[in-house]
């Protein structure tokens, strides 16, 4: 769970526009991307430490990152853009840290694997997620990012539960995926951990049981 993305993952994360171009090693550009990454990480660290402050000041972020305030605004026109870049970073991080595993396993293995992966993503991402949700009506840039995050959760479940979902009609399949996404929402995870005081394993147990009950019977191969 503590595995970090590689330098290549991170540079391709913070600058979507450069990611699609052929790679050419450019030391200055690489350093600049690295600075962006450190600024984003400083913002995320401050959010996790103090979730009640959804947007720390530029001075606080700069201090934490070890750069000047000017460095921040050289790379992000305003703090809203930094927040959007942090969302991109976290999405890329979730993809890098949580590839689908055990997709050909038996039902129990697949449920356990999907739940543990999702739980890890929720555990790491809840602080930023709350900021995105509460700021979404004030910042149009956040809407596609939240949409992408939700779509990825559903896509992952489609991969993990393909045998069971294939037995359903299109309508039932859509309904089931929507329900599973609701049950495994980040806020659902946060409530289990914060409100009910469940351990990581206990909270995973809630999801494993719920998904197992929700899915139709696994077809025999």
């Amino acid at each position, binding site marked *: 769970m503590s595995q970090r993305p590689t330098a290549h993952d991170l540079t391709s994360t913070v600058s979507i526009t450069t990611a699609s171009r052929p790679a050419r090693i450019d030391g200055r550009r690489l350093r600049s991307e690295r600075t962006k990454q450190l600024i984003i990480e400083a913002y995320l660290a401050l959010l996790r430490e103090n979730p009640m402050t959804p947007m720390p000041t530029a001075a606080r972020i700069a201090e934490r990152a070890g750069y000047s305030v000017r460095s921040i605004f050289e790379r992000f026109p305003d703090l809203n853009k930094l927040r959007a870049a942090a969302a991109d970073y976290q999405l890329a991080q979730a993809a890098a840290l949580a590839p689908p595993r055990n997709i050909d396993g038996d039902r129990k293995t697949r449920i356990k694997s999907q739940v543990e992966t999702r739980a890890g993503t929720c555990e790491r991402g809840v602080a930023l997620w709350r900021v995105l949700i509460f700021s979404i009506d004030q910042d149009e840039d956040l809407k596609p990012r939240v949409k992408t995050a939700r779509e990825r959760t559903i896509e992952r479940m489609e991969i993990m539960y393909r045998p069971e979902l294939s037995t359903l009609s299109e309508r039932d399949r859509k309904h089931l995926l929507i329900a599973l996404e609701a049950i495994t*929402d980040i806020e659902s995870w946060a409530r289990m951990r914060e*409100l009910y005081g469940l351990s990581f394993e206990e909270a995973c147990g809630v999801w494993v049981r719920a998904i197992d*009950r929700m899915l139709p019977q696994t077809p025999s191969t």
Partner: protein
Amino acid sequence: MIIEAYLTLLRESPQIPTAATIAERAGYSVRSVFERFPDLHALRVAATDYAFTQGTAQAVARDFSGDRLTRLKSHVETRSWICEQWLPLWRALNANQGDSSELKSRINLIRQAILKRIELMYEAELATLGATERLQTLIAIESLIDFESWARMREFSGMSIEEAREVWVKSIDRLLPPTPVS
């Protein structure tokens, strides 16, 4: 009137209304707003209490002695109606809670009321479970019927009220154990 103006504005736009817009909508001066509420936080707390009282009156438990399908439909209809009505306030409450113990306690109170309703409606089925499984089932159903889950079905998936209700009815039915034979 001031509280109702605040709630109406929340329903019209997700932006948190200012004292000036609230006063204008209520037909009072800004001074009148602050004569009654020391600050906007106090107004939010009062609006939450008002909404909770209204919501409780609107969401009287019905059919809790009915058969499984009747209880499922009744519970989902009531819950979805509350979500349709009170989602904007719920969002504002969460967005503004900050470190306010008053708003946090109200959020907890609302969640407790949702859980109690689940326990009431599905008492027969939940009674067949051990303590851990019961808690697991309650948590899963509570997540499923969260305000934001309803909002996603309506806003993100573009579902009608009927289709969204169908998702909840089918899902709760799957999450619950078999109904014991009485």
